[in-house]
């Protein structure tokens, strides 16, 4: 590990930052480093958001037997010789830019009766809160914008504030549909906050740390040199990871939990009265929230920036983080392409009757894991797997009781 610690590529971002700021006097130096971190996060995740919208539309298209957006090119690219074959379309890479220009130039409509201040603050607060969550994610070795002792707590404290933004959007619009949908959205966000937080408590317990850096460090070794110590590879970690991802789907209002926005059923939920740039801000906040939650899942369960195998450590840590993050984001898109939207009561049942009890069982499971440290790994693993799979099957069976494929008597 120490061999890779000071490899050129590994330390390159930090070296670059230090080279840019070291000539400044002491307090300014620190401030400039912070600013650089902020700008880097904004630039990288802003462009990731742009690309993600395109990738999502393309992947959804592929799943539905169509190519997705592939026309919008960028000006002058047709003149580049190595891009000539695309005829200026470059596989629709210009689409995010076109979308952005469209959003920016659209009319920004504020209802006359709306609460002007709240209507304005809501999207800004939403985006600010989802950007703030990026501050504590370790993107690579030595690449964490702010190193806090309780950074996991910070992450979820900042994330909790998005609920307020949703409320402000719904109430500030002075539209009864927006308000009702905001209430539904809040009910969803609050219900899934609980399993979200309970699902990572085992990780905090086992790692013995509330700091993301500490949690990543706790996952940075290998059993017998090839099985990584990632928490997702333990029974409780796997269950926690699944629960975390399901809750993250719900928290970021993604399909199949996109009831708050449900374009086809409720106009657009709390976004009904938003247009133009403010809508774009909400959209961006949604994607950034999804990215941040995926980043957190990578950090908590998938070993953060650690390489999966020791001999792969020559690849810089931030590349590993990016690979894992993108995999999870693709998973989000894949799920969106597959699953239909839940009904409101199913949504609530899933959280309160399934995820929360499973989280509590998982907590007990983690203590079993912790207390049986003397047993051989396989025995321990099997024991914990049984402890979590049995309630999963039982609760799942009670949840799906009486549910069967529908039979149509008259529509033969």
């Amino acid at each position, binding site marked *: 590990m120490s061999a890779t610690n000071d490899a050129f590529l590994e330390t390159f971002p930090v070296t670059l930052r230090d080279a840019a700021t070291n000539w400044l006097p002491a307090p300014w130096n620190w401030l400039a480093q912070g600013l650089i971190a902020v700008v880097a996060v904004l630039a990288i995740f802003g462009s990731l958001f742009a690309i993600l919208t395109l990738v999502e539309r393309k992947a959804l298209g*592929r*799943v539905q*037997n*169509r*190519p997705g957006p592939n026309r919008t090119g960028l000006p002058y690219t047709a003149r580049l010789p190595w891009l000539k074959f695309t005829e200026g379309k470059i596989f629709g890479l210009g689409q995010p830019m076109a979308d952005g220009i469209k959003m920016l130039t659209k009319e920004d409509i504020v209802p006359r009766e709306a609460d002007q201040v709240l209507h304005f603050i809501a999207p800004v607060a939403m985006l600010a809160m989802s950007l703030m969550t990026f501050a504590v994610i370790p993107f690579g070795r030595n690449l964490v914008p702010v190193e806090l002792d309780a950074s996991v707590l910070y992450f979820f404290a900042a994330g909790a504030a998005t609920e307020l933004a949703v409320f402000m959007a719904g109430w500030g619009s002075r539209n009864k549909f927006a308000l009702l949908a905001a209430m539904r959205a809040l009910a969803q966000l609050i219900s899934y906050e609980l399993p979200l937080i309970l699902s990572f408590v085992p990780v905090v317990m086992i790692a013995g740390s509330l700091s993301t850096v500490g949690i990543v460090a706790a996952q940075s070794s290998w059993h017998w040199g090839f099985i990584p110590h990632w928490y997702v590879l333990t029974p409780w970690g796997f269950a926690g990871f699944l629960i975390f991802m399901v809750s993250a789907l719900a928290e970021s209002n993604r399909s199949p939990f996109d009831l708050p926005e449900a374009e086809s059923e409720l106009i657009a939920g709390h976004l009904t009265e938003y247009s133009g740039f403010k809508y774009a801000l909400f959209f961006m906040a949604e994607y950034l929230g999804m990215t941040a939650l995926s980043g957190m899942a990578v950090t908590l369960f998938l070993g953060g920036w650690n390489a999966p195998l020791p001999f792969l450590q020559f690849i810089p840590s931030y590349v590993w983080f990016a690979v894992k993050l993108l995999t999870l984001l693709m998973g989000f898109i*894949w799920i969106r392409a*597959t*699953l239909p939207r839940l009904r409101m009561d199913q949504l609530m049942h899933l959280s309160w009757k399934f995820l929360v009890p499973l989280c509590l069982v998982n907590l007990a499971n983690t203590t079993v894991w912790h207390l049986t440290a003397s047993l051989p790994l396989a025995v321990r693993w099997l024991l914990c797997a049984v402890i979590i799979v049995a309630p999963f*099957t039982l609760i799942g069976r009670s949840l*799906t009781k009486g549910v069967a494929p529908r039979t149509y008597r008259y529509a033969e």
Partner: protein
Amino acid sequence: MLGSGLLQGLAVTAKNLVGSFHDPARYTTVEYPEVKEQLPESFRNFPFLVTDNATDPMGALRCVACQICEKECPPQCIYIEKSKDKKPDATGKPQLYPAVFAIDTSVCMSCQICVEVCPFDAIKMDQEFEIATTDRFSALLLNREQLAKPNTYFHQIRPTEAAEVDGRLTAERKAAEEKAKAAAAAKAAAAAAPKPAASAVPTATPAATAPTAPKPAAAATPAVPTPEKPAP
């Protein structure tokens, strides 16, 4: 177990996603302006006028301005003015022709009734669908020159029906010629033997109008279009 259905669904979409890159059956989209799908033969859009001579379309319109289509058109989008003079048609017989033939495509509902009632196979349904214009009044009112399209074009868009129509027309012409020949022969015979002439003349009269006579049967054919093979 709970979740197995979800996994099955995820497998289906994953197969589609991966398959769309190598399996044409899973990637059925045709990228339209560059690639155009073969239209089914029975696809129809707006009517056009069949002309037998591609070099002189106005001279060889099959339309004789009988105005049946104008009368039958449910939304009344056809407007015809008869010519004052007569022109020889494809067989050389002098016929009236439409001095003005206009179809308002903004009104036309593509019902194909004009095609079905036309006794001369002069109006057929076109397959041209890229008809968007920037002017919704004059540009959508198609006149005679815009409507006239050669018979070869008809063969191109609907080979089956065109062949059938052509076959019928030649058969009718041949029959008419034979009838006319027979009538001429009968006349000659009648001239030779004046007595039975009285019985020969009534049979000759329908023979002269032979091209129109079997129309009721012919008109039924386009109404029941030949079953199309689905486009591959």
